[in-house]
């Protein structure tokens, strides 16, 4: 019995590992998209006029207000078809997870930007530096550093949310595990392996981000106690 399980685990590992690549692709793509959208959204919310910041608030309210699965179905079975977008399951999942992540990431960055205070902005402007230049070269470099702990949280949450792509048949880790489990009637060992894969990914990513945080720390600031 035990020997059979070990054999099963052994045989399914390469199959699951191909899912690992898909999961990493999902998370990387969604985090990247969320980052690219989240930064300008945060800037718009802090420095934009009331229309811009109002629009962004509505976006954030929408994507934070609905369950991931509802959004995934809404876009995959609804909007993407309505607009005649012929997107693969993988692309659809990256897009939806990325749009959701943008809402959360924008709030991480917004908090960081606001924590810097307006004094440095005033100093930059008084030197004759243009506002957008000050945002890019003075505010953002500091805000991004401050954002790393919150961002690491977003990474861990998104990684686990990515398993929801199973619902539209993306061949990520969980989908493959389910596939093996139904074929072999041995769910426990397979789901156990996929759990380990997720834990390693979470731990590894968070660890890497902690290293990054340490590497870019501003000397004299927040010294390790």
């Amino acid at each position, binding site marked *: 019995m035990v020997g059979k399980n070990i054999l099963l685990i052994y045989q399914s590992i390469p199959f699951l590992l191909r899912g690992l690549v898909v999961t990493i692709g999902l998370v990387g793509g969604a985090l990247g998209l969320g980052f690219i959208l989240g930064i300008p959204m945060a800037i718009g919310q802090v420095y934009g006029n009331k229309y811009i910041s109002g629009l962004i608030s509505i976006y954030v309210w929408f994507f934070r207000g609905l369950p991931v699965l509802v959004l995934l179905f809404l876009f995959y079975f609804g909007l993407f078809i309505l607009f005649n977008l012929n997107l693969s399951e993988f692309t659809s999942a990256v897009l939806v997870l990325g749009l959701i992540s943008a809402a959360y990431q924008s709030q991480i960055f917004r908090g960081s930007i606001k924590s810097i205070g307006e004094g440095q902005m005033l*100093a930059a*402007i008084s*030197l*004759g530096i243009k506002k957008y230049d000050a945002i890019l070269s*003075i505010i953002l470099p500091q805000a991004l550093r401050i954002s790393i702990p919150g961002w690491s949280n977003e990474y861990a949450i998104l990684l686990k949310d990515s398993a929801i792509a199973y619902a539209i048949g993306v061949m990520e880790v969980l989908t493959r595990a389910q596939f093996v489990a139904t074929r072999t009637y041995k769910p426990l060992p397979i789901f156990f392996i996929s759990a380990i894969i997720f834990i390693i990914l979470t731990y590894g990513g968070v660890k890497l981000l902690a290293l990054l945080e340490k590497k870019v720390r501003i000397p*004299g*600031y927040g010294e390790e106690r």
Partner: protein
Amino acid sequence: MNLEKADHDNGVVLRVEDIHKTYGKNEILKGVSFHIKKGETIVIIGASGSGKSTLLRCINQLTIPEKGRIWLEGEEVTHHMKEISHFRQRIGMVFQDFNLFDHLCAVRNVEIGLIKVKKMDKKQAREIAMEELRRVGLERQANQYPAQLSGGQKQRVSIARALAMNPTVMLFDEPTSALDPELIGEVLEVMRDLAMGGMTMVVVTHEMGFARSVANEIIFIEGGKILDQGTPHKLFTNPEHERTRQFICKIDELYGKTEK
């Protein structure tokens, strides 16, 4: 009246005329006018909330006044928001809370304006920045970050940062108010040297010793208006208003008369 020509002829660097500023229902400035000639130092005193800091911020348009005009070397600053960056480069500003860029070391704080605004190449900007740090006595701290500097050192870096732009006039907004008492002296010394070196300066401060020994003119602001103005000698010995005498006495009690 051709102020532009007149200012040029009389060596007037900065002219402020009838500045009004209201926050909500609160009229902070109710028509303030003054001018300063090249190489002069004007010290502005007044109780907190009297509008001193707002006045300084109106000069480089960090705060936009509702009414009034400002000229820098005969060119009008007000109503020219498109070119405001050109004026701001020529008006150095030093803040109470230093407002250094925390992610940049001292020398990069000083050179960033040259690189971003004057589009200077990095090598030249670095040379000028080092020179300015030397001028405020912080050459050895060039590679230290703001969090590694004392309050007095931070303020001197912020003075160097403003000086690097080679400004026509320097504005100081309570530059020593956030400092520990034993660090005030080093900042005042730098400012004194600057004044002696011929820099045109407008200084908001409670440091009466500095005002007495450095200022060409002291302006006392009360309730958003200039109540008294004149040479230090006149304001300290023979002010026009009793209120001015009271205020100076109080400040002297609080901060001590000890400074020469």
